[in-house]
């Protein structure tokens, strides 16, 4: 049992980060803290992909004359490529969310969700 | 012209008219001309189909597929013809009357009124000629929606409340029907009407009974079978021509007609008897006949009294259908026509009195018969018919209904019919007596109503008389339908 847990520690770390991120996104009232939570959340998923690509005793997926084309010698490059794309997506989302946060701050003067809603109701 | 084309004309003329009415709403004369023209064309088209139907042919028209394996399709069989003919002939009279009534009262939003009216008649034709359940259902729902603007026509809070009640009742009824139609499709994979029914006898009895009750309740809402009737008296807030044509002929009859269609062409006599749903229908219909007559006795408002009377007479038709005996079937179908002509006359009279004197309560009608002799004379005549005495149309249908209940061995129901005849007399004759014999309370003398109102009254009254003296061709349509379904009658 203990060994099984140890063998899967990356999963648990991923899950932990996911939960931390989710808490930030849903539990915090400050919009910027929500964004921080979102970044943690996304990073957790990136790490999940990266750890899934690793192999014991393998190296970077660049053709090495010593190993030839033996797939066991190279880590799986595909998840890295996927995550590279996912990072681009995440950057774009973060950019848009920064823009949104700025707009909100300029029109409401606060980043506290409840306070903004209160203002919105009054108008 | 080919028969299918005439069938198409009979159907399509109304929506076209509705569109034209909407577009020419600013010119009342042109607008009313469209109504009259459409009514005339429709009646003509339906009449032109009559010889072929009487000759035993069934013109059909299939438009387009609306669900895989089910088409928007129509057929003019005797039963549908009977309903379509009565509705379209009475539309001509109602159109004339409407113009007199609406102008007499200076009503607002007449464009919406006439356009909705045209749409209602369109839906009624669709129901009459539908050759499968889905087509019937589609027009049934269109009828529900098209009648709504007429119910709320006055736009007073009471009218709006009546409209909501109307929608709540009828849309719910429509849902039961939709479920029933869906079940039929699920069970049989077909929705085409077949004389004698198309539901297979091998089906599980429980689901058949459920199906029968769903159909009964679904159509029963529109047919105002108690305890589903309460929208109808409320809807009497609509202008009188609406009450006359829709709440005595088209809408409510669509309910009972649909029920008859389902009993005859979906279940068939044998299966309907076997399933065991008919006692429910008979019981509720019988109770409705008596209760509504008793309630009618208490109504001082003339239109409400007529409305309760309508509730009762609709159940005559339900009763006749559910008796499953040839004579009762013929009587029920004939009552669709006969009651239509009788009741529309009565509503016309009520409306004429209202337009002319602004009175709507029975207690205010003392002596009015002497001032409006033609109007009240017609009322007196059709009262006799509605009670079921010769020589009017009501006698023919009640006679066959009575005969049918004897055939079916339901002596109790014969008693119900006779008792209700007495009750009819009890709530109708006092009106006539008051109108002609009681002294006028005030000195004000009213003359006869305007010709545009009196004309249709006399026309409808005459039709009711003709239906008693010369029952054909309606009677032969009814008995042909009975022949096809139940192998006998008349």
């Amino acid at each position, binding site marked *: 049992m203990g060994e099984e847990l140890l063998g899967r520690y990356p999963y648990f770390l991923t899950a932990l980060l996911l939960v931390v991120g989710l808490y930030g996104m849903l539990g915090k009232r400050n919009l910027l803290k929500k964004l921080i939570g979102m970044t943690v959340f996304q990073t957790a998923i990136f790490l999940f992909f990266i750890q899934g690509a690793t192999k014991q005793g393998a190296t*970077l997926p*660049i053709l090495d004359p010593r190993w030839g084309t033996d797939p066991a010698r190279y880590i799986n490059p595909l998840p890295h490529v996927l995550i*590279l794309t996912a990072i*681009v997506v995440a950057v774009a989302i973060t*950019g848009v969310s*920064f*823009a*949104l946060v*700025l*707009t909100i701050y*300029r029109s409401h003067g606060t980043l506290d969700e409840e306070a903004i809603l209160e203002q919105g109701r009054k108008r | 012209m080919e028969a299918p084309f005439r069938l198409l004309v009979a159907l399509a003329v109304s929506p076209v008219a509705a569109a034209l009415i909407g577009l020419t709403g600013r010119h009342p004369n042109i607008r009313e001309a469209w109504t009259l023209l459409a009514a005339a064309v429709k009646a003509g088209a339906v009449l032109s189909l009559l010889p072929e139907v009487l000759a035993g042919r069934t013109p059909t028209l299939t438009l387009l597929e609306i669900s895989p394996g089910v088409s928007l399709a129509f057929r003019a069989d005797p039963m549908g013809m009977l309903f379509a003919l009565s509705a379209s002939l009475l539309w001509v009279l109602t159109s004339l009357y409407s113009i007199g009534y609406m102008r007499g009262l200076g009503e607002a939003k007449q464009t919406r009124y006439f356009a909705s009216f045209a749409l209602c008649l369109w839906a009624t034709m669709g129901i009459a000629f539908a050759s499968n359940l889905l087509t019937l259902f589609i027009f049934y729902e269109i009828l529900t929606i098209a009648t709504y603007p007429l119910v709320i026509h006055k736009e007073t809070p009471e009218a709006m409340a009546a409209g909501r009640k109307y929608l709540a009742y009828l849309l719910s009824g429509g849902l039961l029907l939709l479920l029933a139609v869906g079940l039929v499709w699920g069970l049989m994979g077909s929705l085409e009407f077949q004389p004698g029914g198309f539901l297979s006898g091998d089906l599980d009895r429980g689901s058949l009974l459920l199906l029968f009750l769903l159909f009964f309740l679904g159509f029963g809402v529109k047919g105002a079978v108690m305890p589903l009737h309460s929208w109808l008296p409320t809807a009497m807030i609509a202008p009188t021509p609406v009450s006359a044509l829709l709440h005595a002929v088209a809408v409510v009859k669509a309910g009972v007609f649909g029920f008859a269609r389902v009993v005859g062409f979906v279940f068939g006599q044998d299966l309907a008897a076997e399933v065991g749903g008919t006692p429910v229908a008979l019981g509720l219909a019988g109770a409705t006949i008596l209760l509504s007559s008793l309630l009618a006795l208490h109504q001082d408002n003339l239109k409400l009294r007529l409305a309760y009377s309508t509730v009762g007479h609709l159940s005559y038709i339900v009763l006749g259908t559910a008796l499953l005996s040839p004579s009762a079937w013929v009587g029920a179908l004939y009552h669709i026509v006969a009651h239509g002509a009788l009741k529309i006359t009565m509503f016309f009279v009520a409306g004429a009195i209202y337009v002319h004197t602004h009175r709507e309560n029975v207690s205010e009608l003392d002596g009015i018969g002497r001032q409006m002799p033609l109007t009240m004379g017609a009322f007196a005549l059709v009262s006799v018919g509605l009670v079921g005495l010769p020589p009017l149309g009501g006698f023919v249908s009640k006679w066959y209904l009575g005969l049918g209940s004897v055939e079916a061995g339901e002596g109790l129901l014969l008693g119900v019919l006779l008792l209700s005849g007495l009750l009819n007399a009890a709530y109708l004759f006092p009106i006539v007596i008051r109108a002609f014999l009681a002294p006028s309370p005030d000195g004000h003398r009213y003359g006869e109503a305007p010709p545009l109102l009196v004309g249709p009254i006399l026309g409808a009254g005459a039709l009711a008389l003709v239906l008693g003296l010369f029952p054909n061709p309606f009677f032969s349509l009814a008995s042909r339908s009975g022949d096809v379904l139940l192998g006998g009658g008349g």
Partner: protein
Amino acid sequence: MLTRHPSPVVTTVARLLAPLIALFALYVVAHGHYSPGGGFQGGVLLAASTLLLRLALGEKDSAPAFPPSLALPMAVTGVLLYTVTGVVPLFLGGGYLDYARLPWPGAPAPLLRYFGILVVEVGVALAVWGTMVAIFDRLARGEG
């Protein structure tokens, strides 16, 4: 609006560092198609060099190095470069991004693939560079 950093140490180091970063970025872009690197990474580094100047010198003084109005058109041009390189083979009977079908007379397919991907990487680099700078400029000015 960002202003010039008061310390000459910061401004000088930034001005020294920025071209080096940009140079390294070009190397990364150029190597992307057969070793680690590529348009995206290179583009981010290029953006980093620009942003370093922006942070140290402020928007006005860094404008000669990279005019703010250039960012959006550059980003769009980069994407177009990518997309057009992808679409051209489509009209020449190949698939989307099928570089072997690029219309370069006489060039063998492997060479076409080699340069096709390079063009795409350059497009990506431009797009990333432009986008990052555009986002930064807008946020720095406090626009949504």
